[in-house]
């Protein structure tokens, strides 16, 4: 019976969370300061970035220290689209996503030839090349100073021209985008391709013996992850109205890995959980303690060493343990239920 309760508890908590996310711009001003709406928006965007790191690391077994590259490409795509080419909202958005995806598609050819730590190194090398270019060519990218830009309205219906300057609209815009791409990711992971990712992660030789080409599977995963990171970068540039070379620096990728590892690699929602937790820690703690990252590092080390499945793994085990502990209760319940249904 306890197991049943825990399961219900999870559903209730999930429902509450969904309700909170749907009403956040109206609920938060009552509970907290309004600026937490922006923090929540930021958490949503970064959790999409964490999901892209997780797709590579948690599902395909490729540890990338270079995801920031695609994040930065997305951000620069938007910046160039809006300020240099004078595009309107959606073309600039598409330009950002396309820039990231094309970069991933080109780099992927070389990068996924390697696995294990060699892949990690090559991902660092690639992101460093682009970072150094972005920092060095001040005439094109404005380097560390970054590019600021104006954002046009998202769409026009009659006289209604909502822009992201409206915090509530911005929140819902980001929520819808992030939810859509999370749904897309979930659908891919449920598809045969998603199982192929896991097969390659577990044992690439066996995966190739049952007919998968590990190289192609890794390539798909790499491009899809680059695409997701690009969407996150595009959204973040629109959110902050600003793009800088720092978005491409390896520390951004490193943060993504820490979020994924703490939240739970290889679970769909773990990265979002880790991102939310660590951004809240950052917002709360960085005011009082300049070197709060030390704490983050220690949390990450403890998690990786003692609970490699992360917070989500812990939660899932807690949920499942109760089920396993009371199999008799579960079966008797279902038996009686089925009998009730029959009669």
């Amino acid at each position, binding site marked *: 019976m306890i197991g049943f309760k825990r399961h219900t508890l999870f559903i209730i908590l999930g429902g509450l969370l969904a309700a909170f996310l749907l009403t956040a711009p109206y609920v938060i001003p009552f509970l907290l300061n309004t600026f937490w709406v922006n923090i929540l928006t930021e958490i949503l965007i970064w959790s999409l970035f964490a999901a892209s790191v997780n797709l590579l690391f948690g599902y395909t077994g490729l*540890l990338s220290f270079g995801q920031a590259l695609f994040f930065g490409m997305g951000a620069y795509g938007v910046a160039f689209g809006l300020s240099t080419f004078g595009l309107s909202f959606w073309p600039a958005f598409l330009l950002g996503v396309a820039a990231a995806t094309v970069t991933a598609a080109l780099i992927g050819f070389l990068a996924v030839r*390697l696995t294990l730590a*060699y892949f990690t190194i090559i991902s660092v*090398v690639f992101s460093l090349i682009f970072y150094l270019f972005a920092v060095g060519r001040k005439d094109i990218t404005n380097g560390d100073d970054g590019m600021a830009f104006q954002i046009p309205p998202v769409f026009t219906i009659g006289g209604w021209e909502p822009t992201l300057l409206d915090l509530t609209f911005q929140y819902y815009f980001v929520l819808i985008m992030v939810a859509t791409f999370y749904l897309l990711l979930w659908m891919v992971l449920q598809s045969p391709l998603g199982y192929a990712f896991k097969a390659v992660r577990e044992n690439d030789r066996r995966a190739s013996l049952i007919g998968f080409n590990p190289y192609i599977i890794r390539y798909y995963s790499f491009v899809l992850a680059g695409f997701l990171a690009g969407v996150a970068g595009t959204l973040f540039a629109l959110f902050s109205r600003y793009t800088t070379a720092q978005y491409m620096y390896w520390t951004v990728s490193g943060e993504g*890995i820490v979020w994924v590892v703490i939240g739970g690699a290889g679970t769909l929602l773990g990265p979002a959980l880790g991102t939310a937790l660590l951004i809240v820690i950052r917002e709360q703690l960085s005011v009082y303690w300049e070197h709060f990252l030390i704490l983050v*590092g220690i949390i990450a080390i403890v998690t*990786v060493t003692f609970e*490699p499945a992360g917070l989500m793994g812990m939660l899932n085990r807690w949920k499942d343990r109760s089920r396993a502990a009371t199999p008799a209760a579960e079966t008797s319940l279902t038996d009686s239920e089925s009998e009730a249904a029959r009669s």
Partner: protein
Amino acid sequence: MTFCSMSMLNRSWLAVGILAMAFIALPFFLAEFQRIFVAEILIWGLFTMSFSLVYGYGGMMSFAQAVFFGAGCYGFNLGTHYYGFNTWGAIASAVVAAVTLAIPIGVVATRARSHHFLIVTVIFSVLVHMILSSGHWRWLGGPYVTRSLTFVPEVPFGFVTLSYESEIVAYYFSLAVVAAAFGGCSLLAVSPFGRALIAQKDNEMRAHLIGLRVVWMRFSIFVIAAGVAGLSGALYALLARYTSLEFFHWTYSGQAVVMAVIGGANSLVGPFIGTAIYLLAAEHLSRHFESFAILIGIILILVVRYAPMGVWGLARIAIRKVSSE
């Protein structure tokens, strides 16, 4: 007696002898700055070799080697600065500093496997770097991020004291210490402990089943390699006469990984070859070609893809072919 009829052992002793003579004779054919450059290659080579002890023998992709190199640098620097040690004492304090730091890090890190080990070591080196450069540790890092030796180092040999003022001394002392460390590590590699390490690297479960204490072995090689990295840090501090907090940064570990892989990470000779290739390329190519990192990336891809044993692995195959004909 022909060359081919010699036993394998004799032939490798011959190679060692020729190599030793070549290195002893080398400074007479080089300009002053080139002697220092060769000494630098030897020292960074020792550092890279410490990585291949952890990775090629222990099976752990460590990004914390730079921390121990930095600990060696500062162990040397602070030993002379605060305690007035002579060179021998300061080298000892450098190794002690590296090992002292490696024990707690190793206890935690060696519990993690593969990617998780990599992440843990990166985080540890970022943490150490962040704490040291936070400004609260000025007694250690110096008023700025670098700390210079305030004197010309001297090496006392009882009856005679050699000064680092002459780069011939710098060259030969670096060579002697690196050669001694290389010899020690080679003995370790062929010892039963070295064989057991390779066994646990190839298959941890089987090694465990034949009674090897895998966790203890992983920890031991981690600490030993940290000591070697600390020794190379001390030699670097001696040669360059300055230390920088930058050496704690994990990008230096990343460089060691690249050097070791290019040369051949499964051997102890390979890292030296990889270091020489990398540093020579950096010295000569970065002048003409701005994006030098791209080139290194391409070389890395080619080596990992087509010659996973590295340049030394290829050379060994070539030698075997030639001698069997």
